[in-house]
């Protein structure tokens, strides 16, 4: 049953597959992001409460969702790496982590900027922002651990274990932060409801969700290709692949 998967434990086969898929993913990313953003920014109606500031939702929510999804994917790769000792899964961790961290940063930035007109301050200890901040710490921990070891495989294993521990803790952290937030609802903060959204606003959001999903996957693929090449640099296929890139091999 798993036989079709088996060739992809081989780096070269994985590289060929990713290389073949990446242009398609990138193209669909550009299309869906462009449609989602233009639709959301220009065509979706303004919110009756928040006016046009709510349009930040079209990046804030997708980036928040896929920052968490990327962490989950990283933990799955970690589990595969630990259980079946598949090297390509180990290399997926440094490919995914920075992309997920970038998504987390985007969610934090947009959340803070959205908070300014709504709450009057750049930073509010709102449940979603706080859990995103903690998620960023978790990403930083995984990346720091991955690069802390001299031996790459040990680092990958350590990062895998930490990612799995983190994924078990993530729901606990998320719900405890949410609970904490309802508890400390200060009088100064008038918490605004994320708009219970009308269909005319929902459709562009769904399109941008798709766009961010494809974007996350494309960025991970780009990094993953590099990781594959980096670990196989001494192999002929990697050297051939790299010398096929024109600009450098002719000149410098």
């Amino acid at each position: 049953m798993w036989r079709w998967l088996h060739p992809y434990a081989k780096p070269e086969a994985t590289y060929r597959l990713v290389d073949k898929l990446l242009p398609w993913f990138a193209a669909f990313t550009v299309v869906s992001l462009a449609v989602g953003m233009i639709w959301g920014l220009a065509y979706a109606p303004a919110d009756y409460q928040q006016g046009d500031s709510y349009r930040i939702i079209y990046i804030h929510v997708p980036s928040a969702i896929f920052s968490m999804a990327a962490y989950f994917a990283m933990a799955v790769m970690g589990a595969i790496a630990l259980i079946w000792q598949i090297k390509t899964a180990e290399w997926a961790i440094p490919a995914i982590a920075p992309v997920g961290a970038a998504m987390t940063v985007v969610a934090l930035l947009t959340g803070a900027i959205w908070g300014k007109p709504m709450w009057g301050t750049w930073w509010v200890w709102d449940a979603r922002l706080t859990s995103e901040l903690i998620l960023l710490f978790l990403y930083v921990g995984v990346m720091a651990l991955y690069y802390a070891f001299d031996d790459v495989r040990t680092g990958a294993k350590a990062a895998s274990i930490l990612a799995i521990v983190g994924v078990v803790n993530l729901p606990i952290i998320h719900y405890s932060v949410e609970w904490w937030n309802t508890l400390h609802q200060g009088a100064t903060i008038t918490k605004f409801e994320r708009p219970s959204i009308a269909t005319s606003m929902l459709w562009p959001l769904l399109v941008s969700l798709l766009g961010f999903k494809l974007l996350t996957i494309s960025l991970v693929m780009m990094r993953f290709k590099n990781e594959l090449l980096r670990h196989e640099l001494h192999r002929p296929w990697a050297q051939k692949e790299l010398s096929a890139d024109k600009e450098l091999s002719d000149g410098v």
Partner: protein
Amino acid sequence: MNSWQLWRSVLAKDLRIAARRRSDALNPLMFLLMVVTLFPLGIGPGPDILERIAPGIIWVAALLATLLGLDRLFKDDYNDGSLEQLCLLPEPLAYTLTAKVAAHWLLSGLPLVLLSPLLALLLNLPVDAWWALALSLLLGTPALSALGAIGAALTLQLQRGGSLVSLILLPLFIPLLIFATSAVENAGMGLDVHAQLAILAAISVLTVTLAPLAIAAAVRMSMN
């Protein structure tokens, strides 16, 4: 030797070592006491403010004190090879290592519980909240030790793993901090604290049962 005897002997060894090097066990406690002293000096001794922030200070200081004792947890056994011997034994490693977690808890968690009335006194916590503080520490610190052991095992190979351990562990400590401080606050206001304590206990049980798997995996990884 069956696995229970092994478990006891690992625990006894760690306790005996700690009894011979008392400063190692005492330093984190002194650190905790000093951190707690610094806050009134930094914020001002107004009893209202202190009472308000006391649960948070004590718990944050407890988290930091737990981190201090961690780098010794596996390091000596790793350096003298006895940890490798434990890996080679037929007894399940995850089970044996819980003895070391238990030793760490007895040496860092339990003293915290015993010290908590003194800390509560220093920070002007209402008497009603004392037992809640002690209970929250009693229920929460096993999870701290278990999670801490994961961090210590992951960074075993590194020469200077100290700052990395804090980076890894502090985010994982957050749920405990939230529920424990809320329990103490509620107790101070005379409200019900059973819910928070029950959640703390649940987190501890979950962590103490699942963490040994991660600890064992991390120790094995550090051996390769």
